[in-house]
């Protein structure tokens, strides 16, 4: 268990694993043990994906659905970042605010984001606002927590020096706390993006009339398993792309700060 495998062997075993997985899936699908309608093979799913790029299903092509999902995601995520990060920094600076917000935050944290769906639908409807609230509730906690922790971890000497020089609070936050907690904030933004994207899918499954989640629910009631699987693949891919994009930003910031 200690040591490492030689890279070529590792690569080969990995390939065997992947081919084995896809092969087993294709084999079970082709064997007719499970009805084809319920378990399409990997190639059927790939073909369905290509087809969905230009044919419309449940009111739009795959790209149209992805587009409306991404729109909601951007809105909810931006809101979470714009509220969460400043609030976290302020809580890191002002004890009283921390003491007031923390108990509310702790009490709300036990409610799963998805449990907000009924109120979200009631307050903001099922089109745009409702799902946006759900993404917000998924992405907000890590945005706030990481900004808060980042601000609390700033070397006290910097803060004391700034205070001694009579730096006003807003400049202290913008010019001392914010730069010093950037790595923690960016990490929080990345975690928040992942959770927000997941919550969005959940919200679209329950209340929405466009989006990839909606497409999957429609496919489920129309027993189009291949379309459901295309939805899963698309959601996974976009999730990975969002994560890669934010990781790139994170790495660039770390390099700029010389902490690579």
């Amino acid at each position, binding site marked *: 268990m200690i040591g490492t495998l030689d890279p070529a062997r590792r690569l080969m075993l990995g390939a065997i694993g*992947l081919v084995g997985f896809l092969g087993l899936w294709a084999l079970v699908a082709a064997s007719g043990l499970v009805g084809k309608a319920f378990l399409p093979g990997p190639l059927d799913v790939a073909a369905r994906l290509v087809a969905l790029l230009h044919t419309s299903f449940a009111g739009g092509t795959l790209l149209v659905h992805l587009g409306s999902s991404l729109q909601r995601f951007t809105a909810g995520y931006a809101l979470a970042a714009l509220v969460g990060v400043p609030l976290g920094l302020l809580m890191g600076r002002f004890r009283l605010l921390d003491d007031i917000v923390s108990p509310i935050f702790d009490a709300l944290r036990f409610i799963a984001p*998805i449990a907000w769906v009924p109120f979200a639908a009631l307050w903001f409807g099922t089109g745009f606002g409702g799902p946006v609230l759900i993404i917000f509730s998924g992405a907000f906690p890590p945005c706030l927590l990481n900004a808060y922790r980042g601000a609390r971890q700033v070397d006290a000497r910097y803060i004391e020096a700034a205070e001694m020089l009579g730096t006003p609070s807003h400049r202290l936050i913008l010019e001392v706390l914010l730069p010093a907690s950037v790595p923690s904030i960016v990490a929080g933004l990345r975690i928040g993006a992942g959770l927000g*994207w997941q919550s969005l899918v959940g919200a679209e499954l329950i209340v929405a009339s466009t989006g990839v*989640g909606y497409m999957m629910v429609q496919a489920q009631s129309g027993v189009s398993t291949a379309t459901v699987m295309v939805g899963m*693949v698309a959601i996974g891919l976009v999730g990975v792309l969002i994560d890669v994009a934010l990781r790139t930003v994170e790495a660039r910031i770390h390099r700029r700060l010389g902490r690579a």
Partner: protein
Amino acid sequence: MPLRRRSVIGLTTLALLAALWFLATSVTGMISPGRFPTPGDTWTAAVQASVRGYGDATLLIHVLQSLKLVALGFAVSILVGVPLGLLMGTSLTAEALLNPVFMLLRPIPPLAWIPLAILWFGLGDTAKIMVIFFAAFVPSVINTHAGVRQIDRPLIEAARMLGTPRWRFIGEVVVPGAAPMIFTGLRLSLQASWTTLVAAELVGALAGLGHLLNLAQQDLYPGMILVGMIAVAIFGALTTALLGAVERRTVTWVRTAGEPA
């Protein structure tokens, strides 16, 4: 001192919020009861759900149904996830073979399995257990795997040198060494179990807390929505606390200064 100050301010805040809730809904009517329930409405809904029942069952039945599914789904996923993580941690071949498959499936969010689960197993318990499994199994594998990888090398080498047989090696070196990380994984798994169960029940179910929430939404019954949300939060917190207690009784040899939750 700081702790006392914190809890005084915290309790004051929560009390003020409760008072504000009462003021905004019951007294001034600033927030219409159709959007957010008054404390009275919520109490009425709680009594109605507990005594007469709502959605063909009492609150107790809904809670028990959800608890049962969370327990079953959680149990299945850790029974598969922890051994798989141990295997991937102790065998390089298994790791090289399984890791890519894992990487392929991991980006799919747990909730995205819901439509497939309903297609395959309908609206009954099996579909819910499948969804919880996919959600909860991933964190237990990853953390167990990482926990094994984190064990002090000298411990492993000593056991190796003494010729410890494989099963004793796993039982007496690997599992105790990885235990704190395994529990971290279990905690994440438990959270994921609740989230996915509620989502799956919201999408379609015949009983359970998500089903209650769904009906309350369709009936435009804000009091009942709030009761459902509070029930989800309370039982989520209770099961997490239970897992914490199990961890403290099992992993007695590690004292971490970290946060308990």
